[in-house]
């Protein structure tokens, strides 16, 4: 009984870019800065595609909430192997205040509309570092969650999920339908090949707004400031191991 998988992906500032705080101290500079799919979401998309290749999934629908450019993020997911896309349009200037609580409501509504069996999200987005959306989506749907997943296997009518937790690994079994969030080691995402990128242009992408889904995206927070972290004192280079040991002993660290 192949599953329908709904995968979320977010367009974020590329992980290798050096962030600059805006002069108005209310955000970071995003104009003209390289953006890409959130790395954890690439892993989520990859997992969905592998499920389809193993015939566990029959259809992959990829969702992204964001401005016009999020269409590129969706296309990347389609090129990796997703079947069709849903672009929930949110203007660029509202993105900083679009939070997991809003996105989870959108994902939950879409999961119901699409009759999804699995919702697959990235563990966290590297811009707001929240790590909440999958948990909140699961909660709204009253579905179980397999978050920080490093391995997912279908066992009869359940999913067995190995999760990365503070002390090591934890294994749980959850009923379907379920929400999962991908951790770093779940898989290594593929690069989209050129033929697949071309094919992706023909795949359907539906457009809608949060309002079309009955979701209110009124911000729940007010950003007071965004600032640079405190500057550290410059470090010292030492010339040899003896000097290093000497300095450590001076500071009170010794064996």
């Amino acid at each position, binding site marked *: 009984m192949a599953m329908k998988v709904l995968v979320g992906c977010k367009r974020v500032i590329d992980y290798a870019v050096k962030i600059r705080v805006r002069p108005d101290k209310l955000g*970071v500079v995003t104009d003209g800065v390289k953006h890409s799919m959130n790395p954890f979401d690439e892993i989520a998309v990859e997992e969905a595609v592998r499920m389809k290749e193993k015939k566990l999934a029959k259809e992959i629908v990829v969702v992204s909430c964001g401005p016009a450019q999020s269409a590129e993020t969706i296309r990347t997911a389609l090129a990796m192997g997703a079947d069709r896309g849903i672009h929930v349009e949110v203007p660029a200037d509202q993105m900083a205040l679009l939070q997991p609580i809003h996105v989870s409501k959108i994902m939950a509504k879409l999961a119901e509309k699409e009759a999804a069996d699995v919702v697959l999200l990235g563990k966290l987005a590297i*811009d707001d570092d929240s790590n*909440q959306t999958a*948990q909140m989506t699961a909660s709204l749907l009253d579905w179980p*969650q397999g978050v920080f997943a490093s391995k997912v296997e279908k066992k009869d009518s359940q999913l067995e999920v190995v999760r990365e937790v*503070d002390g*090591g690994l934890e294994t749980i079994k959850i009923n379907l339908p379920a929400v999962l969030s991908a951790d770093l*080691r779940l898989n290594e995402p593929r690069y989209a090949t050129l033929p697949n990128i071309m094919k992706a242009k023909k795949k359907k992408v539906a457009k809608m707004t949060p309002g079309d889904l009955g979701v209110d995206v009124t911000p729940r927070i007010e950003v007071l400031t965004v600032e640079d*972290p405190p500057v550290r004192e410059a470090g010292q280079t030492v010339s040899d191991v003896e000097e290093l040991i000497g300095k450590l002993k001076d500071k009170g*660290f010794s064996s």
Partner: protein
Amino acid sequence: MFSLTNRLRQVASPAAQLYRCQSTLVVAEHNNEKLNPATLHAITAAKQLGGEINCVIFGSQNTAAIAKEVSGVEGISKILVAENAAFEGFLPEKLTPILLASQEQFKFTHIVAGASAFSRSLLPRVAAKLDVSPISDIIGVKDAETFVRTIYAGNAIMTLKSKDPVKILTVRTTAFEAAATSGGSGAVEDLAASADMPAISEYVGQELTKSDRPDLGSAKVVVSGGRGMKTGDNFKMLYDLADKLGAAVGASRAAVDAGMVPNDMQIGQTGKIIAPELYIAVGISGAIQHLAGMKDSK
């Protein structure tokens, strides 16, 4: 009559109500044997919020001993205990309904826990049902509604005000001192609230790394290895060094991905975030995402 109306208006003012009823619930974390120190750091953050502080302990066994540890902490009013075999594995699907029932009973204004895999799994689930936006990994409390947290792997610091009526927060343990475990006189009572627990998830087991070394999250000295170590066997040099220094051993993502060491040693944006007195990095390039996990080292 006029003065009575005036007093009624004062009582009805939202600010006055908020202050008078301000009450924080700290969700304790433990492993059925000992209290997790993360809870002590969360209690310090809770104290900075002002208002009454209560603590809840869920567990499948031995909760009385955990409650005893918590009762040693000064400044806690009530320690609520809920012991149930169903809480084995601390499954968030099972804990959420009963946390919501407690919220219904006590109407806390703040729900707080130390940031960890446990609280990150549980608190957002609770927040979704209460229709509030949880705030992850705070590093500072400005007042009962205003918090500080990092974004972009610690490369920017945001101060934000929450507009929600209940604030649900996870607290970065390295940003707050651990509360002292003596001088307390909190009253321990059984949690009266109960709730149906869905049977949609099962806890199968854990594979925890056992070590005699200090806990990575709280060690004063940490020796860390990265891709430059080349093999897991080479990590022996770091383990030996760590033993001489009484240190814990950590690793970068590259070392974990390469299978040199287990995942619970990972330090970084999505691994552990630590702030030891001394951090020794060996064979680590210093990518932004790794620095995010250790740049507060003294």
